[in-house]
């Protein structure tokens, strides 16, 4: 009879574990190829965009493609990638986390312009809070990366989702003005303004701001036999405002480039919680304020030496409020976090075929809160990566040895002593091109997911003696790339195609990747019950074997008209191997479909782009034991997008309309969190 108390108590905790305060940076990695720099590395940077040239799985979508698909949400873009799933708690304000190949969301580092988002309180990042309108590209890497000129944290992560904002590019006038308005179902509205200015030959700035509002009151089916009803989702209203300032500077010949980034966002939203039969009574709210500041400098030298250094600071504030009637007074929890990070990476190409790099990230973080028995954790986190890369015309081999050291302290009356942690994570990848266009790749990677502050120190639940979760990945793949013989050798729709055309070069193009993988997760951090209170333990072990297939074909009849087909498919066998005596032994992990896939057929013309997307997921179970009552049905979603870019006397106008879930499918990704049925979005963007 007392157990309910645990469940209810687990509620705020659950949210805290899932939620993430926004940013806080680590180090910066990839600087998007800066148009003003004329260095050989630009080709390297462009090459890394090509999925088919990478020695480990890499998927990428650029602005022209996003526009031609009419995508308005980052989640939609990620759904086009193979081998990744978004754990979506439904609706606009619902938490959305990225899980790469079933390793768990905490194994994916999410980077925004090279800044690792998320914090040490929670291990996973809510990607629902990114503003796709601001982004120029989205890419996903797993099981390693060829680019060794990256932050240590990036190089050592099991999976990396990188989103990058557009770098100002001035052809004619010294400034750009952009404005965008979007609206859609369930009172969704978004307004954005951006201004870019060039200051002389070497400096430019970008200023932007955006507002979002959504009521999110979509209808859903309460699937309860004869008592089934159609209800409206209550309590998911959200309002979000953000601003950013970017400064790009060229310090002159041999003095390098400078970048300053300031981000601020403030958001408030209701937490609708799971759908409870017979009772809909949302009482929870969440507010966030986040500030991120980052300064980065990078330079290249004649002798093949490159260096990048950065300094960043992040502050985040989270307030959670619950007004449930069973609380004597509303529960209000406040969290303040600070993170200060310094990072550097140096790479040296000492031979045309050989490159070495050394990267170091140092982060200081602290969490203060007024929750009962807060332990006020402080962390010093160091990540070091030493990498070597060899490439010749046919071969590419990369090896990395990483070292992660974490030292935590806690203060106050509830302080606990915490041992320092030190881990070594090696990785290796290689690819070879036996025939033209065809490439074979192989990679191995060991990585660690450090326990979060919540895992370690959350009052009575946390366990200060946790070890990190360890992920081991093996990947074997084959890629095929074909370009029309007339086209230039560069990647089809490269980063720089700001002109907005998604039409590929005339002729037939294809990019196909097929990968088979095996993952082992050891020391999984799991909450286990102990006398009404849960405790975090390193008890889980899971193995996954799967295959990811992605393909992009296009045929351009002329520079004015093209057909494109892109598709993805994933097979996943991911099972629990913790305890042979348990019911879940060798059963598919919860929420893991055996099959998932989708495809988009696009007609790209100079007048209008039309695309039709199918996205399907096979049945899954919400439990580790496949009982019928816990089955989540398979679903297939249809969506349609129409868009067009006009050019009018120096003005550029982008108009888009997108309709999602045309079949009004009633489905859930997470049990008790229904997803919206049919909904639409319309967007108007003006760029001067």
């Amino acid at each position: 009879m007392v157990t309910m108390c645990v469940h209810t108590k687990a509620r705020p905790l659950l949210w805290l574990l899932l939620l993430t305060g926004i940013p806080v940076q680590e180090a910066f990695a990839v600087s998007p190829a800066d148009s003003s720099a004329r260095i050989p590395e630009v080709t390297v940077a462009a090459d890394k965009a090509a999925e088919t040239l990478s020695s480990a799985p890499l998927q990428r979508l650029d602005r022209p493609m996003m526009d031609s698909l009419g995508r308005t949400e980052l989640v939609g873009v990620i759904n086009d990638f193979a081998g990744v799933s978004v754990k979506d708690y439904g609706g606009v304000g619902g938490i959305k986390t990225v899980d790469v190949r079933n390793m768990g969301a905490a194994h994916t580092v999410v980077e925004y312009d090279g800044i690792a988002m998320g914090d040490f309180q929670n291990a996973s990042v809510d990607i629902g809070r990114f503003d796709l309108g601001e982004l120029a590209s989205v890419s996903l890497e797993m099981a390693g990366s060829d680019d060794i000129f990256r932050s240590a944290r990036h190089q050592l992560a099991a999976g990396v989702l990188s989103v990058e904002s557009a770098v100002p590019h001035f052809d004619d006038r010294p400034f750009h003005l952009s404005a965008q308005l979007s609206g859609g179902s369930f009172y969704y509205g978004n307004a954005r303004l951006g201004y870019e200015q060039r200051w002389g030959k070497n400096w430019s700035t970008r200023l932007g701001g955006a507002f979002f509002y959504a009521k999110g009151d979509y209808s859903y089916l309460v699937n309860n036999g004869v008592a089934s009803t159609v209800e409206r989702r209550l309590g998911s209203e959200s309002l979000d405002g953000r601003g950013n300032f970017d400064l790009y500077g060229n310090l002159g010949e041999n003095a390098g480039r400078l970048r300053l980034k300031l981000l601020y966002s403030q958001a408030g939203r209701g937490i609708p919680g799971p759908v409870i039969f017979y009772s809909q009574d949302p009482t929870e709210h969440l507010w966030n304020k986040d500030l991120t500041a980052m300064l980065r400098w990078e330079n290249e030298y004649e002798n093949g030496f490159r260096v990048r250094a950065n300094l960043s600071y992040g502050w985040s504030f989270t307030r959670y409020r619950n007004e449930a009637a069973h609380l004597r007074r509303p529960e209000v929890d406040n969290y303040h976090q600070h993170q200060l990070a310094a990072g550097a990476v140096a790479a040296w190409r000492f031979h045309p075929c050989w490159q070495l790099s050394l990267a170091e990230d140092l982060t200081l973080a602290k969490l203060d809160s007024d929750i009962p028995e807060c332990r006020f954790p402080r962390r010093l986190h160091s990540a070091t990566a030493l990498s070597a890369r060899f490439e010749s015309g046919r071969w590419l081999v990369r090896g990395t040895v990483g070292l992660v050291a974490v030292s935590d302290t806690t203060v106050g009356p509830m302080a606990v002593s915490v041992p320092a942690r030190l881990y070594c994570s090696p990785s290796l990848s290689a690819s070879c091109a036996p025939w033209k266009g065809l490439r074979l790749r192989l990679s191995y990677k060991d990585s660690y997911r450090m326990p979060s502050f919540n895992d370690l120190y959350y009052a009575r639940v946390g366990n200060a003696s946790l070890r990190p979760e360890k992920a081991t990945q093996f990947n074997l793949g084959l890629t095929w790339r074909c370009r029309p013989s007339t086209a230039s050798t560069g990647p089809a729709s490269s980063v720089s195609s700001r002109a907005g055309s998604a039409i590929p070069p005339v002729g037939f193009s294809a990019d196909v990747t097929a990968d088979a993988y095996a993952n082992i997760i050891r020391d999984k951090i799991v909450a286990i019950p102990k006398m009404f209170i849960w405790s975090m333990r390193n008890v889980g072990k899971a193995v996954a074997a799967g295959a990811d297939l992605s393909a992009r074909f296009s045929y351009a009849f002329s520079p004015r008209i093209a057909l494109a087909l892109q598709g993805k498919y994933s097979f996943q066998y991911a099972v629990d191997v913790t305890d042979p005596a348990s019911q879940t032994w060798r059963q598919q992990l919860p929420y893991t479909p055996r099959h998932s896939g989708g495809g988009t057929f696009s007609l790209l013309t100079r007048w209008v782009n039309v695309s039709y997307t199918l996205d399907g997921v096979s049945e899954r179970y919400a439990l580790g034991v496949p009982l019928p009552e816990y089955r989540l049905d398979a679903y297939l979603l249809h969506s349609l997008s129409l868009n067009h870019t006009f050019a009018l006397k120096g003005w550029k106008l982008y108009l888009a309309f997108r309709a999602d879930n045309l079949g009004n499918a009633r489905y859930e990704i997470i049990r008790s969190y229904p997803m919206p049925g049919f909904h639409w979005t319309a967007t108007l963007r003006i760029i001067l």
Partner: protein
Amino acid sequence: MKTTLFSSRSFGRIFLGAALLLPVFTSCNKDNPTGGGGSAPQPPYFSKGKYLVLNNGNWGSNDASLGRWEDAGKTYYPGAFFGINKQHLGDLGQDILVYGHKLYIAVSGSKKIFVTDPQLKLIRQIDPDNGQPRHLESCKGKVYVTLYEGYLAEIDTTTFQLRKVAVGDNPEGFAILGGKAYVANSGGMNYPDYGNTVSVVDLENFQVEKTLTVHDNPVGVWALGEKLFILSNGNYDYGHPDNYKAPKLQIYDGSSLSDSGFSDVSMCAQYGDMLYILKDAYGPDGAAVIKYSADEGGQGTFFPPTAKILGAYSLSVTKDYLWLGTSNYKDPGEMQVWTREGQDFYASFGTQGLNPQKVVELPE
């Protein structure tokens, strides 16, 4: 796998004629053993040897469920409630009670009390005033229920009208003795400042008569003879020896409070004048159950050392059996059945639902 089970035809046979016969309840103890003398012979409207198992489910999953276990053949049939009513119980099944040839099911997350007839057919859905029902007891034609929002409510079993009285924060279990309800106010939501009171409610005028101060975090009360046994969970803070308050089973004799002497008590269940005390549910050596009689004290222990029981979640006692539900909170639970008299292992089965919460025997 199909989950429908109760064939309505067989139920029709079983219940034939039964509906007209109202059992006479002479006591306020819902588990009053038959043959204790005084009570009229009860009609066999549920056939002998059938038990209902309530699965609490997982928070936010709407997976509370009822299953039926039959002694003959030792067979378990899940999905009893849905099979008959074609609708689910909802979120977090908290307690079940058989009273006055009706079954009452308290579902806390969904804020409902379902009332069924002997065929398990739903006859009423009570909205307990937007409160979360926690624990059910019956007395003199009324059913009483604690509401987590801080109330004890009384349900009239003919009109299903509700009246309620404010008690302490987050009340859990309670017992009825001498026309009074003793309600454990856990204050579980006021963590780390758990409650430490028991409200005494006079059931005649339905007012709080007085408030007893007990150990921290009281969660259950049982009446044995003239004594009340009050179980408090303490503050769970075993990580900090200087701050830790261990669970405690206290005895209230009507005027003063004393310690029962049992340590590490995790849960209790009552049958007649016997209290079954489960100790060390989470200890490394597994749980133990002590049978305690108000007259004779503690006697014997269930679960010999060879049967190390881990993950004890609930304890129920019926006339012939002791039921120990085990759970890891993420997979379907299991039930172990031991004979009450012989203290021997009898059967075990998977409950096909999360967190097996309670077992009741259906009246003959």
